């Protein structure tokens, strides 16, 4: 009886551990600068002893469409399949990690059997540093600098800079034509809190990235205890 029980537990453990095995759990994708979408395949194998059925594969984002190749959802032991992920770049920049969850038949909703990740690297053509310039209320309304850098095969020129809040003055300074610019930001006063969105318009030919924004904020002073 004990032997039978041990054998049964061993078998059950083996079956529980088996499932879909993905060749890669993370795929890194360098996105071309002007691409609208990027697509990658995640290959998997049913390493178990029973047929597995994919109930759902979802990335929880309208930016990433996930399909099982050929619409095939049932996989016999040893059978190989492909999960195709298509990422819509939109106005993304930098590195974006999107997990894709795969539920098999019988998985609880809160615990998918597998999770794979598509990591998309989208070139950042225009960099802004810092993203928010800060002053405290009551501080000296000194000028601060927002640095703009261009990383592109052609020169990218700043066409205009504007502040959404008239209490902040902005002045564009060219450091290196087509490559590097400064925006000098000066609050007219700092005795009340205020926020400005600084809009930077460039002549970058990739329209979705041609306009950028940064922030300038006068925040209430927090007295240290």
């Amino acid at each position, binding site marked *: 009886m004990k032997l039978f029980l041990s054998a049964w537990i061993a078998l059950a453990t083996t079956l529980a551990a088996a499932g879909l095995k993905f060749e890669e759990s993370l795929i890194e994708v360098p996105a071309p600068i002007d691409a609208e979408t990027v697509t990658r395949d995640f290959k998997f194998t049913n390493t178990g002893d029973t047929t597995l059925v994919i109930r759902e594969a*979802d*990335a*929880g*984002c*309208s*930016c990433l469409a996930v399909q099982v190749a050929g619409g095939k959802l049932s996989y016999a032991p040893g059978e190989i399949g492909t999960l195709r992920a298509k990422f*819509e*770049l*939109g*106005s*993304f920049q930098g590195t*974006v*990690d*999107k*997990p894709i*969850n795969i539920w098999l038949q019988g998985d*609880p*909703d*809160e*615990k*998918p059997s597998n*999770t794979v990740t598509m990591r998309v690297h989208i070139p950042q053509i225009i960099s802004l540093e*810092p*993203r*928010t310039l*800060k002053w405290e209320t009551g501080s000296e309304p000194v000028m601060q600098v927002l640095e703009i850098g261009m990383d592109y095969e052609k020169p990218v020129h700043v066409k205009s800079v504007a502040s959404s809040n008239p209490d902040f003055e902005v002045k564009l300074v060219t450091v290196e034509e087509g490559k590097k610019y400064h925006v000098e930001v000066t609050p007219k006063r700092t005795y009340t*809190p205020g*926020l400005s*969105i600084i809009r930077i318009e460039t002549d970058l030919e990739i329209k979705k990235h041609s*306009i950028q*924004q940064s*922030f300038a*904020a006068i*925040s*209430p002073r927090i007295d240290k205890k």
Partner: protein
Amino acid sequence: MNALAQFTAVAGLSLAAAGATWLAKGRPAFPEPKVAVCDKALIKDDEICPADVPEDVLWIDARPRPEWMENGLEGSVLWNLDPKEDARVFEAQAATRIFESGASLVVVYCGTEACGTSRIIADRIKSLNLGPTVKILFGGWDALRLRDSS
């Protein structure tokens, strides 16, 4: 009795029972969401349990716009990754609300625990360096629904 007749009889009886239950008890209730228990000791550093979210929080809803419009939390700000939406507008609206509300905590939620969108949005908010602490709601919208119904 052959197999087909047996199947028909069983299916017919089951359907009749289900129909009677429907008539007697009415339409079935919306199923309770299944959410893993939030254990403070096990969650990631950038996550927060629904029970630990204070009143004066600023919520960021990372779900698709129709879902936010249908049942987004009162005062929440929409910011999702839908490529058809304008990410700059989301960023500007969120920054303005964070600044105006003076909230010291911003919590981002998406649809489910498995959804990864809220972490991307939370990272973007952090990169703005506007001041408040930014956390991701463990369990997402499902956990909120469960918390509010209990």
